[in-house]
């Protein structure tokens, strides 16, 4: 199943470089989470990615992908061209993510069928392309549905100061959150200097399953802090079951703004 992973990259990883402020010390857990969630991610982007899927025996599968995003006031558009391996080469996925909360529009082009088909946004707790990332990881969350509690205001990750925050669904949204994300509780590690979430520990509705997220290799590209490596590990009863790594390269921001790129015609034409 394909999904809106481009948004994920932005939601999970991007931040303006100049966000560290003097007032950060007085921010509440909610304010920090919201600030992290609403960071500026560029008006458009292009990136190449390798998605590496690793099973418990260490066997790897790799997908090479080129993706574009375009933001406007109404929606964020993304389109992803799958380049390899052979069984997915030529596949294209396109998504419109509406700012006002309406259901996303999604289309999938399968080269075997030579046809663009609309697909339902579907269960957001499902796996994205067989990876450990879910649709909810990819599309981000609605911060209004959660309570945030500061667990440690003076934590560190790799020697860098971070906040450690617990997020739990508000009682009135508990069922909705569980249905849409499959998650029941998360711990977030958010850097104080740029509000990038660099780690996450996620407890799932599947008993004994916990997931560990990390964002690594942060680089400032066109003024935007960009982790070039995202990783999610699924752990069952403290044993690693599966891992997924997104490795990015060739990031370009605010250069590809042609709306024609985000059409079903573009999906059929293939990689641009």
């Amino acid at each position: 199943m394909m999904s809106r992973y481009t948004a994920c990259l932005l939601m999970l990883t991007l931040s303006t470089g100049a966000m560290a402020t003097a007032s950060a010390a007085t921010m509440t857990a909610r304010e920090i989470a919201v600030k992290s969630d609403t960071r500026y991610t560029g008006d458009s982007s292009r990136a190449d990615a390798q998605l590496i899927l690793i099973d418990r025996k260490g066997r790897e599968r790799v997908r090479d992908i080129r993706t574009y995003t375009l933001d406007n006031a109404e929606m964020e558009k993304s389109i992803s061209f799958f380049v390899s391996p052979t069984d997915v080469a030529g596949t294209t996925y396109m998504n419109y993510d509406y700012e006002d909360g309406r259901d996303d529009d999604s289309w999938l082009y399968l080269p075997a069928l030579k046809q663009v088909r609309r697909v339902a946004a579907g269960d957001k707790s499902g796996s994205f392309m067989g990876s450990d990332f879910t649709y909810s990881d990819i599309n981000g969350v609605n911060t209004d549905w959660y309570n945030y509690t500061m667990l440690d205001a003076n934590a560190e990750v790799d020697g860098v100061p971070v906040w450690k925050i617990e997020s739990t669904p508000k009682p009135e949204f508990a069922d909705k959150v569980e249905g849409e994300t499959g998650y029941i509780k998360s711990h977030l590690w958010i850097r104080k200097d740029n509000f990038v979430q660099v780690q996450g520990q996620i407890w799932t509705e599947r008993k004994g399953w916990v997931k560990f997220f990390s964002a690594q290799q942060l680089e400032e590209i066109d003024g935007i802090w960009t982790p070039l490596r995202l990783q999610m590990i699924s752990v069952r009863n403290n044993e690693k079951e599966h891992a997924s790594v997104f490795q990015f390269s060739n990031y370009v921001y605010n250069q590809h703004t042609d709306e024609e790129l985000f059409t079903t015609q573009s999906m059929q034409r293939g990689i641009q």
Partner: protein
Amino acid sequence: MNKAPASLTVATLSLLSSLAWPQDFFDSVATQTSTDELDLDSPWTHRTWLQQKTGYGWHTPGVAASRDQAALTRTESQLFGEVGWRQNTWRLQASGSLLHDWLPDLENWGAFSGYDFTEQQNQQRRWRLQLADTFVEWQDNDWWVKAGYQTLAWGESESLKITDVLARRDQRWPGQADLEKLRLPVPAVQVTWNNQLDWVTLIHPLPDRMPAAGDEFDPYVELRQQQSELNLIQEHETRPGFAIRWRQQWQGLDAQWMLADVTSYESELTVFNTGPLGADVHLSPWRQQVLGGSAQWVKGSWLLRTEQALHNNVRVTQQNPQAPWQKTRQWRGMLGADFNGISDLLISAEYSWLYIKNRIPTLGEQRYQPAASGRIQYTLYNDRLTLEAYAQSITGDEGSLIRLQADWTVSDNFSVSLSAIEYDAQQADLLHPYRHNDSLLLSMRWGL
């Protein structure tokens, strides 16, 4: 985070580093894949794979086909290649397959003794080069032109052809085709404006690819039983076909309207001459007009689909199979739904119908002919394994088929697929002569 205690010995550290998994779940996972920068800017793209497919029929066919016992039905190798090139507004693509069914060879070599093949079967199973989508395309601003051999998929209905009238089909193994062979390419020019208006000119398309004499699904198998010799003479319609389509997208809804004046890919029986040495049967396509529309609507985890079309001038057989076929006007429709609200599970169902508006009593088909299909697909082990169950009731309650399939992705470059297809039909059903052509298919594909 858990930090390794300083007292760990070098040997222990060495052992830990040899494992793919870190002890700290936040540490970087070691990968064997080179994560150097990708180069996706090359103007060239290519895809190549080798497939080996073997079929086994576990029943004796209901009527006399070459296969007269449970036996292998085919053992086909396919080498597929596709190369593409792009530069600014231009793109080129060439693709095709080299195919060979080894079963007649195995018989010649004494390694297979299931049954004898007819001359036509031998001809169809020999080494052959099959052209796939091969075209040149140009795009500039609102205009997109694509000319060449191309697959035109204008509909989604699985149980009935409604608006999907531009693609040729392979009818040799109903219900057994690979995904990429559900439709065959045809020579055509497509001009698109503003990603909304499509104009297609079909240039001398060939009829559907039909089974060889003696094949399990030979549509003339009963006629062959009645005649000592049956000569099928296929006539061709050379006029180009035309189709126009308007597409519109809204949030949650896609809609298309289409109009086509095309030559059919099916053929009617126009002349039936019998003599002492056998019969000559002339087969001719007909010209038909199609006016239709389709829509796909998304709400939450549901995708609702519909296709509706009026077909004019469609030929239908009479009760007397040797009588001239009749022109009919038909309303064809489909209502369908997909649901993917349960993790990794996709459920699809559709109901379709064919309604003959000007049916005469001698017609060989009912006025109202329903059809239906359903599919359940479940993926697991991080998309390595896909299980699928598919069932279809053929239009007009003429029989049904069930297909169970498992696809296992062993690695990026190797996958295995196992399918079982079971047919079922009553005495009066169209599918009845073919009801015992159940098949087990094993397919292995290597990406090269």
